[in-house]
């Protein structure tokens, strides 16, 4: 896990894949575990096209915009205006580096809070300008370090999810590589969710899942199968709407063709969404995510109100009643002040 975050393990994997890409048999010929794991490896392939590799073919013009106006500019997130034919759109995407140097600059594609706050700023701009939004998801996870926590990575992700759930403009989401948990979902709440064939989408990395549930990261492939994290599996579950086939042995073999295929589907979806009134669009987006999740409703026994006095009541009787009438002036974090335990 740590190795992955630092990029070490992944460099090694990629080096192996690059040394002998033909060693992998075609996906269909393999058992589920091998096939799923092959897709996870492809999703993480170092040469997989990133948003900046795709944009030259995918859009006719791209003007990048920088900075969150609050703290800084996070290069793990790329955002800006783009023109696709006559359509003007706003593009947001997560960008990993192609080599170690770029990866350090882009923090291995793991956004800090300022990355999400930048994308929120640009998305609100899109709403104001009436431009549709296209997001490109490719992230192992949001940056987990102390500086992220200090600046509120959880708050940034939650706000971003909330913003996307109410934005009054069409949103098309394309998962191009790794859809890693909350860091991915923060820019993946859209009207339509598209994924490349070898993209993956999961609530936790398979290594993380395996180390918790199987007590060893070696079972990552088993965990990947259990979580049904490949794009076709996610489509079957209704979480992804459209899966785009990749050229050749995977998107990394032909960036331009991958971009053209994405462009075709994105343009089609943008035109479909443009015809829907905004009220209906936002309502349908809410309904889409509102409906996800499997549960059943059993008839519950009637609520039993306990007859014995509750803990709170008993305590209140022990304490001075005056205390319950207003906020006390003592510092809230104080530990030295204790409930009336001398009466116990």
């Amino acid at each position, binding site marked *: 896990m*740590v190795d992955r975050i630092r990029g070490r393990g992944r460099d090694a994997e990629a080096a192996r894949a690059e040394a002998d890409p033909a060693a992998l048999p075609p996906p269909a010929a393999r058992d589920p575990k091998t096939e799923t794991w092959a897709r996870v490896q492809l999703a993480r392939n170092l040469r997989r096209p990133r948003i900046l590799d795709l944009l030259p073919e995918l859009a006719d013009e791209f003007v990048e915009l920088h900075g*969150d106006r609050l703290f800084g500019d996070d290069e793990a997130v790329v955002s800006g205006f783009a023109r696709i034919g006559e359509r003007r759109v706003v593009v947001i995407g997560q960008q990993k580096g192609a080599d170690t140097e770029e990866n350090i600059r882009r923090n291995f594609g793991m956004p800090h809070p300022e990355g999400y706050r930048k994308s929120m700023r640009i998305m609100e701009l899109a709403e104001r300008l009436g431009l549709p939004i296209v997001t490109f998801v490719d992230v192992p996870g949001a940056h*987990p*370090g102390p500086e992220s926590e200090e600046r509120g*990575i959880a708050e940034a992700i939650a706000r971003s999810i*909330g913003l996307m759930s109410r934005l009054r403009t069409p949103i098309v989401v394309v998962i191009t590589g790794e859809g890693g948990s909350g860091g991915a979902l923060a820019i993946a709440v859209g009207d339509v969710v598209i994924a490349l064939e070898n993209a993956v989408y999961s609530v936790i990395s398979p290594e993380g899942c395996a180390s918790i549930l199987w007590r060893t990261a070696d079972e990552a492939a088993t965990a990947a199968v259990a979580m049904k994290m490949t794009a076709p599996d996610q489509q079957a579950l209704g979480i992804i709407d459209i899966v785009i086939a990749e050229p050749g042995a995977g998107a990394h073999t032909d960036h331009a063709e991958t971009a053209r295929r994405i462009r075709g589907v994105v343009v089609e979806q943008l035109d479909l969404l443009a015809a829907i009134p905004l009220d209906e669009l936002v309502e349908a987006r809410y309904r889409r995510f509102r409906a*996800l999740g499997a549960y059943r409703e059993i008839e519950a026994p009637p609520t039993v109100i306990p007859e014995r006095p509750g803990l709170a009541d008993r305590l209140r009787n022990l*304490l001075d009643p005056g205390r319950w009438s207003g906020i006390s002036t003592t510092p809230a*974090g104080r530990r030295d002040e204790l*409930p009336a335990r001398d009466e116990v």
Partner: protein
Amino acid sequence: MPIKLPSFRPRRDAYPPDLWTKCPSCGEMLFNKQLDKVLRVCPSCGHHFRLSAEARIEMLLDHGSFAERDAGLESEDPLGFVDQKTYPDRIAAAQLATGMRDAAVWGTGTIDGQPVVVCVMDFGFMGGSMGAVVGEKVTRAAEHALASRVPLFVVAASGGARMQEGTFSLMQLAKTVGALERLRAAGVPFLSLLSDPTTGGVFASFAVLGDVNIAEPNALIGFAGARVSAGTIAQELPPGFQRSEFLFEHGFLDRVIHRSELRSEISSLLGYLVAPSVAIPAERLDGDPLGLPSFRPLSFLSNLAERVLPPESETGDTTNGHGSRPVQPEPDQPASDIEETRRG
């Protein structure tokens, strides 16, 4: 209130009949009856023990005022997830151990006579992890709060999203936050209590989004597991990292409140967290009281928002709120059980 199925033994009997609890923070042996009387706070060091949902409700709500809703919601197994046990087996074991059907309960009640819609999580049920049932309960609580214009109060206690439901559990982030956005637009307040622990996907969704965020002292609150964070920087984490006081210093909590003051402070806060009254359009009076299934609420909601709220700008940067209260370092308590359940 946790459901009591006839075949389930009460929670108290599920534990070995021990009379004493050792404080994990200071090592003091505490007599359980006495501990209950002081709201399960260690008298010698102020360590706040975790509370079950039932104890939390008894402690915070007026006695007998809580009426549970949707007690019959139960998880399904959408992925057919099997690790070392099957997911249904894990659920059944957790139900037996806790007497609850899933890791959250929601309902209506009063605090010092002030009505609230309340949803309380229980860390004892599979680490309080959020699957479809928890997500649905939080969402229904928010929708009910919106329809009745009663403030929403959520007590979070969770390691994060529930891996066994895969991306469905990730989608609960979008579902709950989407409902909260509507609540916010309608001007109904939301009070969030982050208890020990609130991490991962629960922190990065509804828990962090309170109009007022409060926490108990020294609660573990964070996005990523401490081991991951430590791994990325390869150095010691700052003292008090991911504790309530750390979040308070960085501006993500309004107040850190000792458990003995919690109820009175919440009561005072609810005196301010009142939804401004609005005229309900006649068309909404007949029809579904929650206004849920029909396809109209959005335009209704946005009009509502314009009526009750001043034009609102997203407050993105909350990292500057440096408080003056010193962080109180505490002896490290064993966090291995939390560690294992944290995930994005």
